[in-house]
């Protein structure tokens, strides 16, 4: 009975502590996983039509209730305890590297960032955004890190596959050319043969759409 399954999903989501696996909801309500997805879709539409103060979202591979984002000011006043401090830009960059390159070792992250990342990695681990996921087979068996379900929850993503594709952030040909020109600057002074220019990475038309507009973006002029 459709209505019964829909009501049961609402009831179960009320008591789950973590995002509820669609497969579990399907098992408990004796409908297919697709049907669960359809029913959740109906619930979402109903809540929106009724202008409810809560929503159902899909994060970390499951469904959960959460407060409607536009009521954040009320919740901020209420939920004082347990609020997470914002990540520094160093933290975010490190997290981005782990997210896109996982599984990855500390040394590999450091090589990309160009600085020691031990402190930042430890903070991210303590916050529960990254965790040890294994060890590299090579010498020294360095620990490999990956992101956690908590990371997905923090970003409101259902899985790491939902991260915006990294290719969309690769700087456009113009930026790369500029970077290269800067490094090559001495070539103009010295009597050296001009080397053939670096092949530019694929100019991705989405690159600029995908990027949020930062206040002081050095790349775009």
């Amino acid at each position, binding site marked *: 009975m459709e209505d019964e399954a829909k009501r049961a999903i609402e009831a179960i989501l009320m008591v789950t502590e973590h995002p509820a696996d669609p497969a579990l909801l399907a098992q408990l309500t004796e409908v297919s996983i697709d049907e669960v997805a359809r029913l959740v879709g109906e619930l979402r539409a109903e809540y929106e039509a009724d202008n409810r103060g809560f929503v159902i979202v899909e994060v970390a591979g499951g469904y959960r209730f959460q407060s409607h984002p536009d009521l954040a000011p009320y*919740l901020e006043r209420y939920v004082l305890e347990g609020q997470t401090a914002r990540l520094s830009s160093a933290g*975010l960059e490190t997290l981005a590297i782990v997210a896109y390159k996982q599984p990855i070792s500390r040394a590999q992250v450091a090589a990309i960032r160009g600085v020691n990342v031990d402190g930042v990695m430890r903070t991210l681990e303590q916050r529960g955004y990254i965790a040890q996921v294994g060890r590299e087979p090579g010498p020294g068996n360095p620990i490999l890190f990956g992101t956690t379900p908590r990371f997905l929850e923090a*970003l409101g993503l259902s899985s790491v596959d939902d991260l915006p594709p990294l290719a969309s952030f690769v700087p456009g040909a113009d930026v790369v050319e500029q*970077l290269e020109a800067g*490094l090559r600057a001495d070539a103009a002074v010295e009597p050296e043969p001009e080397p053939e220019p*670096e092949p530019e990475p694929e100019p991705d038309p989405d690159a600029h759409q995908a990027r949020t507009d930062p206040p002081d973006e050095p790349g775009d*002029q």
Partner: protein
Amino acid sequence: MGYHVHTPVFDGPFDLLLHLILREQVDLYEVSLAEIVDAYLSEIERLEQMNLEFSTEFLLIAATLVELKTRRLLPDDGTVDLDDELALWEERDLLLSRLVECKTFKDAARVLGGLSANAGLSYPRHGGLEERYLGLVPDLLEGVDASELRTAFLRATAPKPVPTVDLSHLHAVRITVADAVAELADELPRAGRLSFRELTSSLVERLEVVVRFLAVLELFKQGLVDIEQAQAFGDIHISWIGSTQFDGDLELVDAYDG
């Protein structure tokens, strides 16, 4: 070319390079390191306290710039070894790919930050079972006894391994500037006048040449040597003008090998 450092943007190891190259569009080799250092110091003063990460990243940037600049300053009569030339371009390509990678992740981080800020506007329900169902819950401590609890406590409070600082990505410094100063102070009074080329002929690693060059500058600063270069790109000649005994103060030599 106008050059201004807005130091609050020193926000990543390559930020300065990115800014130099992308925003200011300056010739990297015309960048005055002194200006960068001045701006950095005044920023530190403004912050009124040392931020270790900030300083580390700055030093890395400065080191990179010094390395690049030094290549320009090294004696060069136009007959550069082809292998050296290729190695130089290889290094430059490597640097370029690192800059591109760095910029890629910077932009990705910005988007992740946006996602996180949006997600932070909603607060999750964690629910939990209502009392009337608690009776049905299997006892999670079934089969656990007090000694296991004690073991778990000892496990949780056992000292964690002390994290070690990974320096594998830094150059291994084989010789310090202070060492090089001492060597030169021993060699130059006996030789009297030497060209920099002669002084460095036995050295293999570029870094060692750089260190020796810095050592010469240090001796010049202390008034112990005279330096002349007859023509642009010509040989640099170094003459010892101090007393025969080295009386410079090694303590004054800055530690470049940080």
